[in-house]
């Protein structure tokens, strides 16, 4: 069949490959989806982890499933709308091969772990060059063809098609060159620019490309005139003006400048204008044709059905996207499946469905055969509707469910567990959608092979003609190719990039690594990454950790109580690329540094489910050395680097964990419950223990859980009924419920025992009761009343001097003269569990290995000195020392930490003039006496000879320096 304008074999070849990619990449999505509810599926293979497959699916659907159809159909649309053959038409064959090579090699590279760390910009430079070359060549072909056209008027489909190509050529330079390779484009500026890039892929590539397809094929397939040229103008120009600004809405509540976020919200809402405009145009075009299309068969009618189905999804998805940008809604829905619902409604529901509709129209025309089976096409349509409704509605609802749970303070892992049944439904919906695409493939294959040949040329038909109408003149300047090219393509794009990307970049506060120290409220400098931490960051990027874990704490929905202080811009100054992320399948990791001991991370990466039974995180056995002996697996170099990187995260804003409100050792009302209440809580406690504690402490409570082999110190053996930290008098006395509650709430710093502040008071109370069932001591012995702690006296130099003397006399032998846990007795110290004992180093920051386990606050230190440390040689001092002497020791121990903390701040750039103020605030963070003003002036005055030991001169073995 000859065609004077279109190279049909070429278009046919592009669509053949489109069918392949329409089948393959969505199937990858189903594999990914299964991993959500069955994380063991294809686990243990680096190439097939979620972090490697996810970008294959996303990039594959955007650039494979959708873009291959669009690019191929340009060879059909452009010649017909220009009235001349495509410029250098034969290039199309080479470009098809090159595009397929990009998709195949690109997917393989992602599976192999080559990842640039930028969502939608993951490919390495050779693949970016290949993609750029193909799109650049096609852009050239289209533009030359446009300027050679014989058609008087420039149709709306061509506005969108040419703008999409021009925008994307520029966007690829932005995202593949400027973003990854500009030295100074770091942190929040990297995020701001990336927000633009990622949304340009959606809004300035697949959106205009999809609109080009439906604007071209809907009037033809519905056999009716396009409803309104005026609507076309309004729709195109409002999209061209507003869309370039919206990208920052991906990172609302981040440290990106507030005003740019506001612009992105406003323009996101203004996108309702182009969306509703084009929808009115499409539905108007269908006026009078609904019955014929709905009841009709053949390629044309199924094309119209899919195009209008996509239009409905476009309306829903885009409205969802606009309102999702509103701050209050985003508080609830960002990072969760609501966003995934939106992305599927738009990318699949709209644009892939439009591409499918376009293919239904074109395929009979390029094969010369009628559609093989209307029944298969109908199955395709209805399976798509059924599957996609389940997916889109489910994901939207999930977003509200998970968002609400988190807003009301639920444990993060609990929200993940809650999602699992929904994710099963998502998988089933995805299977239906993929099966539908497979049916399309079969139908198209059979059409090409066995479809009935058309008796005559299938002409493009524009519907019935009846009554005479007026002649319309050629289009105005506003719709000329030059205007589209220069105003929409260039001017609006650069205006948006300038305002939303470059202006924030010029602001010094977004680029300098200066933050406010959380404890002293004074400016300090954030430390750069070490080479090992940088290596770990690369592993983090390679393994796609950032697809599941965000890295910024928002000042909303209680995030600062869940994870730690709100993010500051200066913290990210060394991050290139930024790793803010747009999704939280796992918890945010901004403040994960020093939350757990290294041993917890090792166990967690070896087998996440052994540590957290409800986790859906994959295992990473390739980050461990090959097994050589019977000991626990050991991290290899990459694994160690990854853990070093994780331990660095969130530590640049000072020693915030020491005073973190959520882990304060306060107990809820009614902890010392009646026997009946204790029994009522027991069964619940058993359930909580099985979900939270069993991985380390074991089924029998003997500290031999599956992860225990990684732990140092070993998890507590509850069967002995001996606990380190108690408020009750006497050596190894039983702790009160409040004591256990406090330890569970706070966690034990520097060990694998994390803070459990994220589970409810009720759960903590219940698990306390269950823990007590493991030892007979609770049945045989009476729990003493807690010791009485007298009011803390003022902190004076005399108190410190006395404390130093007492410390050297009573504590130095184990804790060392400088309180660094290096006394002469250390080599022979063991606890009753047979483990070597490491006395606390009082100078270390919160969470550092070897430091104090429960903090430096006054009452805790007093209580520990007074009652001793259970199961260890640490004696009970309340019988040897008077209360005021214990307070003196407490103050001296605190002074060690104050001095070390001050030295850390000085190393981080604290000004000399601010040292006294800093010291006062550090004291206030540790001591109730200091908080009420009983801190003698001379204690905080800068007098070097008064400093305890030599601690002010340097930060001795501080966590920062160690790491």
């Amino acid at each position, binding site marked *: 069949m000859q065609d004077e*304008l279109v190279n049909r074999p070429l278009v046919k070849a592009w669509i053949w490959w489109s069918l392949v990619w329409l089948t393959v990449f969505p199937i990858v999505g189903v594999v990914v989806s299964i991993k959500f509810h069955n994380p063991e599926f294809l686990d243990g293979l680096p190439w097939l982890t979620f972090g490697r497959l996810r970008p294959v699916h996303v990039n594959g659907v955007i650039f494979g499933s959708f873009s291959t159809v669009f690019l191929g159909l340009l060879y059909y*649309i452009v*010649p*017909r*709308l*220009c*009235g001349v053959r495509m410029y250098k038409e034969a290039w199309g064959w080479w470009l098809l091969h090159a595009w397929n090579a990009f998709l195949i090699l690109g997917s393989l590279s992602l599976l192999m772990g080559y990842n640039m760390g930028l969502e939608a910009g993951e490919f390495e430079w050779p693949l970016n060059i290949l993609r750029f070359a193909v799109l650049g060549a096609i852009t050239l072909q289209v533009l030359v063809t446009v300027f050679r056209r*014989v*058609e*008087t*008027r420039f*149709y*709306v489909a061509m506005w969108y098609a040419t703008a999409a190509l021009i925008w994307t050529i520029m966007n690829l330079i932005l995202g593949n060159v400027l973003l990854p390779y500009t030295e100074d484009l770091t942190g929040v500026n990297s995020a701001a620019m990336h927000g633009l890039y990622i949304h340009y892929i959606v809004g300035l590539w697949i959106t205009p490309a999809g609109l080009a397809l439906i604007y*071209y094929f809907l*009037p*033809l397939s519905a056999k*009716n*005139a*396009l*409803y*309104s*040229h*005026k*609507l*076309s103008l*309004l729709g195109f120009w*409002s999209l061209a003006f507003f869309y370039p600004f919206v990208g920052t809405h991906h990172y609302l509540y981040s440290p990106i400048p*507030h*005003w740019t976020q*506001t612009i992105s*919200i*406003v323009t996101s*809402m*203004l996108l*309702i*204008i182009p969306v*509703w*405009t084009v929808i*009115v*145009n499409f539905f*108007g075009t269908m*006026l*009078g044709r609904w019955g014929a299309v709905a009841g009709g068969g053949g390629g044309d009618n199924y094309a119209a059905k899919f195009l209008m189905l996509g239009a409905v999804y476009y309306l829903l998805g885009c409205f969802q996207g606009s309102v999702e940008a509103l*701050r209050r809604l985003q508080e609830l829905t960002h990072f969760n499946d609501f966003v995934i619902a939106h992305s599927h409604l738009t990318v699949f529901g709209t644009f892939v469905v439009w591409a499918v509709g376009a293919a239904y129209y074109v395929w009979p025309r390029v094969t010369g055969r009628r559609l093989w089976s209307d029944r298969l096409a109908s199955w395709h349509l209805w399976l798509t509707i059924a599957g996609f409704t389940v997916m889109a509605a489910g994901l939207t609802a999930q977003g509200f469910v998970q968002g609400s749970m988190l807003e009301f303070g639920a444990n993060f892992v609990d929200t993940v567990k809650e999602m699992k049944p929904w994710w099963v439904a998502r998988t089933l919906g995805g299977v239906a959608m993929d099966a539908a695409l497979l049916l399309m493939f079969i139908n198209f294959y059979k059409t090409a092979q066995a479809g009935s040949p058309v008796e005559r040329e299938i*002409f*493009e*038909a*524009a*519907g*019935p*003609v*009846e*009554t*005479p*109408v*007026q*002649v*319309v*003149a*050629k289009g105005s300047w506003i719709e000329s190719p030059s205007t589209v090219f220069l105003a929409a393509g260039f001017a609006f794009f650069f205006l948006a990039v300038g305002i939303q990307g470059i202006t924030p970049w010029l602001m010094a506060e977004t680029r300098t690594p200066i933050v406010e120290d959380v404890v002293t409220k004074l400016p300090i400098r954030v430390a750069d990454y070490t080479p090992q931490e940088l290596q770990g960051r690369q592993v983090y990027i390679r393994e796609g950790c950032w697809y599941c874990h965000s890295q910024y704490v928002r000042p909303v929905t209680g995030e600062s109580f869940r994870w730690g202080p709100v993010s500051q811009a200066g913290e990210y100054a060394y991050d290139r690329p930024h790793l803010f992320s747009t999704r939280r399948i796992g918890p945010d990791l901004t403040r994960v540094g020093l939350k757990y001991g290294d041993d917890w991370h090792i166990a967690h990466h070896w087998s996440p489910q052994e540590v957290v039974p409800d986790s859906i995180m994959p295992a990473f056995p390739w980050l461990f050395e090959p097994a050589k002996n019977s000991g626990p697996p050991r991290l290899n170099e990459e694994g160690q680097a990854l853990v070093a990187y994780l331990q660095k995260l969130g530590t640049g804003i000072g020693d915030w964990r020491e005073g973190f409100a959520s882990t304060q050792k306060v107990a809820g009302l009614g902890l010392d419950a009646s026997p009946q209440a204790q029994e009522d809580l027991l069964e619940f406690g058993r359930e909580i223990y099985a979900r939270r504690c069993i991985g380390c402490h074991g089924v029998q409570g003997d500290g031999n859980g599956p992860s225990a082999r990684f732990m140092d110190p070993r998890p507590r053996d509850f069967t002995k009924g001996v606990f380190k930290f108690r408020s009750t008098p006497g050596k190894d006395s039983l702790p009160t419920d409040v004591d256990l509650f406090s330890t569970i709430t706070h966690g034990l710093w520097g060990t694998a025992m994390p803070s459990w502040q994220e589970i409810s008071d009720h759960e903590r109370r219940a698990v306390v009761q269950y823990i007590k069932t493991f030892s007979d001591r609770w049945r045989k012995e009476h729990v003493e009343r807690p010791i009485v702690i007298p009011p803390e006296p003022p902190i004076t130099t005399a108190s410190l001097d006395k404390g130093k003397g007492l410390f050297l006399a009573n504590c130095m032998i184990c804790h060392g003269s400088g309180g660094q846990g290096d006394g002469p007795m250390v080599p022979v110290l063991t606890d009753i569990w047979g483990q070597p004992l490491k006395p606390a180093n009082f100078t270390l920051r919160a969470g550092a290995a070897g430091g104090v386990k429960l903090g430096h606050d006054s009452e805790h230190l007093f209580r520990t000195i007074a009652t001793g440390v259970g199961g260890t040689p640490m004696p009970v001092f309340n019988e040897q020392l008077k209360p005021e002497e214990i307070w003196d020791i407490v103050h001296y121990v605190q002074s060690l930490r104050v001095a070390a903390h001050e030295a850390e701040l000085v190393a981080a750039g604290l000004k000399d003039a601010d040292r006294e103020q800093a010291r006062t605030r550090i004291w206030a963070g540790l001591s109730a006496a200091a908080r009420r003003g009983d801190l003698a002036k001379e204690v905080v005055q800068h007098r070097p000879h008064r400093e305890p030991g030599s601690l002010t001169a340097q930060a001795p073995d501080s966590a920062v320096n160690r790491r």
Partner: protein
Amino acid sequence: MSEHDGEQVLHKPSNDHETEQVYHYRHAGIRERDGVVPLWLMLVVLGLLIWSIYYLLRYWSPT
């Protein structure tokens, strides 16, 4: 149906009540009405623009 230079005098579809301008892309076979922008949509546009100005002013800075 007469034709010159890509512009055609066509017959208006049965779903319209007034004579209107239509352009015919002869190589593509697409017809495009000059059409209108419905009043309700213009009101939506106006409302959104007014809201945008309010929101920009109100939320330009965090306070």
